[in-house]
């Protein structure tokens, strides 16, 4: 009998007695589940919930009636009455009349609630009623204005009493907010602080097609321009008020530059800096070696190779800045070796590979530019892998001849190994194209 059969026969229908307590535990669990399941026949969670809801709502309905009777005057005491004129421009602080309870209790007093104008024309920070001074804080700038329909109506004499009465005693809201700044350089990151009184919800429209429903949002203006920020505040009873401010975002300058030559030989080469910055009027260069310049396109000589961080800081006429850093700009070493990738072999016969300023000028000999070489071995291979040239003298290059014959034009492979004066070894490989005049 195989293992498979053994287990199948023996255990396929085997029985084990469970713990005697397990059955009752299971039944309790099942009963709990059953209680949560909706069943119209049985008392369960839904009925229990229904009873709770009924009890609570009955309590709510009954309680305010008793309160009203107990404290008829307490509501009126909490009302502060002040009024504000919203004049043509935005920078006026305003608070609205809150006259509703008077209306509901006494029509005569409601007329007297109007026109207690508390008004000040603003400086950067304006406040009118004393209780607001604490709110309208220090460094931030406050803009408030009111365009609520109810508040407008309240300026029209006796009409407003009727209006308020018709609207059943709305508690109006006022809208005001503070901004961390009103102008700045792009990208401008601003914090907005909603300083409106009682509010249910609010909506910010930022003028760049963005909006927010947070109470105190923060926003980033990426693009330069003027943006009108509008705050709309919704009161608990559906009334609303708005307030707005203008944000000016200045264009950001762009710092860009290039270093030439790309692979300089220091300290021989003078380094040039090409300036591609835009929107900038002031330039400040830090070459990283302790020197600096204010020129548009400076030139500079570095004494030696080093990990210089070259930084250009630019600023616009509006004071916005940008900067660009090239890290480790001249990390090269004063010892180096480099090869060209093409040369013109002379058809005047082999030259022996000695090169001079003249042959160098017409590129008739393939040879490196180098500095600080102590050991050197150069080999050049044809495409078939034949060594066509070999030398251990760095002052001898290849004239394009192999065994007295001018080689075919085409691509050849070179490999060089050696060491610098610093003791550092080098191995380089590459290809060179032999051209013929």
């Amino acid at each position, binding site marked *: 009998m195989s293992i498979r059969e053994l*287990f*199948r026969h023996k*255990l396929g229908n085997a029985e*084990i007695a*469970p*713990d005697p307590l397990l059955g009752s535990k299971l039944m309790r669990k099942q009963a709990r589940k059953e209680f949560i399941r909706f069943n119209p026949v049985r008392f369960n969670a839904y009925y229990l919930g229904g009873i709770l809801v009924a009890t609570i709502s009955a309590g709510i309905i009954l309680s305010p009636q008793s309160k009203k009777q107990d404290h008829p005057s307490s509501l009126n005491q909490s009302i502060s009455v002040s009024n504000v004129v919203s004049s043509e421009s935005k920078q006026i602080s305003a608070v609205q009349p809150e006259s509703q309870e008077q209306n509901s209790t006494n029509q005569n007093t409601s007329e007297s609630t109007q026109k207690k104008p508390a008004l000040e024309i603003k400086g950067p920070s304006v406040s009118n009623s004393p209780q607001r001074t604490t709110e309208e804080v220090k460094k931030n700038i406050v803009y408030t204005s009111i365009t609520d329909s109810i508040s407008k109506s309240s300026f029209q004499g006796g009409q407003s009493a009727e209006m308020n009465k018709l609207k059943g005693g709305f508690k109006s809201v006022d809208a005001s907010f503070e901004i961390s700044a009103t102008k700045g350089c792009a990208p401008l990151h601003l914090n907005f602080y909603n300083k409106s009184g009682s509010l249910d919800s609010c909506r910010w429209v930022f003028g760049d097609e963005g909006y927010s429903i947070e109470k105190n949002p923060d926003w980033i203006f990426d693009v330069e321009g003027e943006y009108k920020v509008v705050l709309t505040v919704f009161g608990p009873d559906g009334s609303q008020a708005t307030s707005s401010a203008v944000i000016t975002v200045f264009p950001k300058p762009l710092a860009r530059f290039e270093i030439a030559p790309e692979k300089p030989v220091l300290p021989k080469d003078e380094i040039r800096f090409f300036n591609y910055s835009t929107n900038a009027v002031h330039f400040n260069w830090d070459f990283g070696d302790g020197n600096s310049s204010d020129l548009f396109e400076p030139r500079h000589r570095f004494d030696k190779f080093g990990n210089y961080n070259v930084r250009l800081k630019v600023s616009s006429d509006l004071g916005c800045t940008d900067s660009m850093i090239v890290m480790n700009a001249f990390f090269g070493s004063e010892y180096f070796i480099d090869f060209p990738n093409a040369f013109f072999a002379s058809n005047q016969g082999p030259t022996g590979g000695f090169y001079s300023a003249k042959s160098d000028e017409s590129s008739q000999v393939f040879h490196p530019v180098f500095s600080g070489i102590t050991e050197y071995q150069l080999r050049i291979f044809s495409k078939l892998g034949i060594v066509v040239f070999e030398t251990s003298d760095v002052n001898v290059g290849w004239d394009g001849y192999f065994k007295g014959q001018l080689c075919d034009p085409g691509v050849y492979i070179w490999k060089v190994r050696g060491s610098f004066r610093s003791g550092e070894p080098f191995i380089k490989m590459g290809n060179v194209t032999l051209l013929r005049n």
Partner: protein
Amino acid sequence: MMSDQQIIDGCANHERKAQQILYDKYSHFLLGVCMRYATDKPEAEDILQDSFLKIFSNIKDFSGTGSFIGWLRKVAVNTAITHYHKNLKYRYHVDIEDYVSVEAGVTSFEEDYFTSDELYQVLNELPTGYRMVFNLYAVEGYKHKEIAEILGVDTNTSKSQYSRAKAVIREKLEKLGKLRSSY
């Protein structure tokens, strides 16, 4: 004594008494199934409890065709598989000694040579992954392809786990056999 059909109807109507009878009648058998998938009895009883909750709430889905006991077994096996997936993080906890290749030894065992308790113990001691594959393939009769889908592994994994499980079981059984013959 109620017939199976009466029990099923009663349970479908959420009658407490029918549920109790169903439990009394089949819990022994289903615990026998769950025990094969668990490391110990408490774990098996956990699976059993979940199985019964599932059975009670889904009994109206039992079509009436096919055997009722087969349906119950299937629910228990599926619950055990769910349980295995919940504890997946232990899946790769396989002792290195379980990986040793086993030399071909005795291939045939006498049925009456081992008690079912011993066989259960052998199963319980297996690594969880081996136990799942072995049970599903050898006892439940699933195909390797189905097992691979159920456990979310490769078909070849199922095959190799099965053969390794078999090897480990054989070794354990031989050990048991030797112990016995030494009496």
